[in-house]
């Protein structure tokens, strides 16, 4: 009995860990969608490039695990944020006046470009980022990997910090303002271009952080972004595109469901079940589980 409960808690923690990674990535997509109404399909590849930047930084930083892992995190955050900023400056900003479908198609181009870049530079091989938290800790009767605890705690801290930023700082409030009414924002003197740039930087940084956290467990490879991206996207849609709490809740729910399913049932149909449920939600409740119903105007 005891063992079963412990197994369940472990499955649950596994789900939360993955769920937070999903949530951190989905947050970026939802923030960008809120501001520009673009479904940025290339977002997952910022996450992937962040992971590679972390891998490179860690190899340069040397053999001290503590130092090299910190270097990896910093590099991942910085590079992902930079790629986000450049994506806006070089691509999306030029398409602000074009129909939405153009930006959306450009996102697919960007996705190919970033993935192609990683393939060309790093090849299809799997790379490894080493973590100093490579041991198990005892919490009560539970043995949990320290890296998982680090992921849980730092994700929660990051999300708390994000909420503080959005709700309490004037720049964060301005970011929400631009998402709700770009014209209103300009009327009060907010430079929407600058805010959009900040949004892309934040979205990228969150993805890079998520990548550096999970990379020691899942390894680093070129299509890691594409795999995560799809799920992050669906999470956003389920949470309501542009809805920040929705993205977090959606990420956690998907992570836990996947983990429980994988822990107890035939793993073969895991993805199918996950995507099946998500598409059903999308069709039955297109405004998202947490969204408000809007009338056709």
């Amino acid at each position: 009995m005891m063992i079963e409960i412990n197994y369940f808690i472990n499955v649950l923690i596994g789900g939360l860990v993955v769920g937070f990674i999903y949530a951190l990535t989905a947050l970026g997509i939802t923030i960008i969608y809120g501001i520009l109404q673009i479904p940025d399909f290339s977002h997952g590849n910022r996450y992937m490039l962040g992971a590679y930047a972390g891998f490179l930084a860690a190899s340069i930083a040397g053999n001290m695990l503590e130092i090299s892992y910190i270097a990896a995190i910093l590099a991942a955050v910085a590079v992902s944020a930079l790629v986000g900023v450049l994506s806006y400056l070089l691509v999306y900003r030029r398409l602000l006046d074009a129909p939405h479908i153009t930006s959306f198609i450009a996102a697919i181009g960007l996705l190919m470009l970033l993935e192609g870049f990683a393939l060309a530079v790093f090849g299809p091989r799997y790379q490894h980022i080493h973590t100093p938290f490579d041991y198990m800790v005892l919490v009560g009767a539970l043995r949990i990997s320290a890296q998982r605890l680090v992921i849980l705690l730092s994700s929660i801290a990051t999300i708390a910090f994000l909420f503080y930023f959005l709700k309490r700082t004037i720049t964060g409030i301005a970011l929400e303002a631009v998402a709700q009414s770009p014209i209103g924002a300009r009327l009060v003197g907010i430079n929407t271009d600058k805010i959009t740039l900040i949004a892309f930087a934040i979205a990228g940084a969150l993805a890079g952080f998520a990548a550096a956290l999970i990379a020691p467990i899942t390894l680093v490879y070129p299509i890691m972004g594409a795999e995560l991206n799809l799920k992050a996207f669906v999470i956003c849609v389920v949470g309501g595109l542009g809805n920040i709490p929705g993205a977090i809740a959606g990420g956690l729910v998907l992570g836990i469901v996947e983990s429980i399913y994988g822990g107890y049932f035939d793993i073969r149909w895991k993805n199918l079940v996950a995507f099946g449920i998500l598409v059903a939600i999308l069709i039955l409740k297109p405004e998202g589980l947490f969204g408000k119903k809007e009338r056709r105007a």
Partner: protein
Amino acid sequence: MNWKIVCPTILVLALLLPLTGSSYAIRISTLFIIYTIAAMGLNIIIGYTGQASLTQGAFYGLGAYVSALLVLNGWSFWSSLVVAVAFVAAVAFLIGLMTLRLKGAYFAIATLLFNVIIYEIVDKWDEVTRGPRGLFGIPSPAIEIGGVSISFSGTQNFYYLMLAVLVIMTVLYWIIIKSPFGSIIVAIRENELLAEYAGVNLTKFKVASFVFSAIFASVAGAFYSAYIGSIFPDITSFVNSFAFLTAVIFGGAGTLAGPFVGTAVVTLINEVFFTLAQYTVLIQGIVFLLAILFMPKGVMGTYYSRKAEKGGELPKRAIMGKL
């Protein structure tokens, strides 16, 4: 450009191509034809109806799988083709019914999800599809005329077969676009609300054009499996959806010749950089982005807007927004 001269010229050149004796050129041209058929279908739903569908790759792969499975079970290619097309059309009908109420990005994401779902089924249901091991030894199609059997196994024979299929599919494509049906889907693309107030049942027409686009994809897929002889679950992946999308956008979404031009350019790029396999995706991405940024209307779209700027005469169908 006068299409009445250009089209027959190209057709004659195409018929003469095997005289060059280059099996490489024939192989590339055959693949080009297969991809073009799928791209034509995608152009109907994206270019003319204005709905960003991302399921085309799955329909293509599904067409290939259904027909290959039947052929491997002893069916003739032609009856398997009919069943594959009907099956994919039915799947598209159901997916269209479910997704086409969604708008813009939501529709795109929903169709992408269905692509993933179809891929998962093909990849994981190995009792039926043999999963990642793929299907091998798919025989080539053959026909019997008056007791004489002609096999399309040779590169050259298959090329002529595909040329005939291309002509048939192009005529179908042309009929769909040129008929009142084509005008109505353009009306939906240009102003959905107003189209509805012209008494058009939006759902019906959107679903119909989605089904048409899937039919083209499944035909292309079925012939692909017969040509290559082996297929793997990858063929249903959304990577193919993106590839067909690239061709349509590149050629000019919503222009009749767009899928031909776009597929030609994309096939060419792939071949030119074939030796740099590692860089293919990167180069595709760069070219794609540059095209969207500097030529968002694609080759044919840009051609027509230049022509309009210069005051040149546009085709008569331009009155109805069709190019």
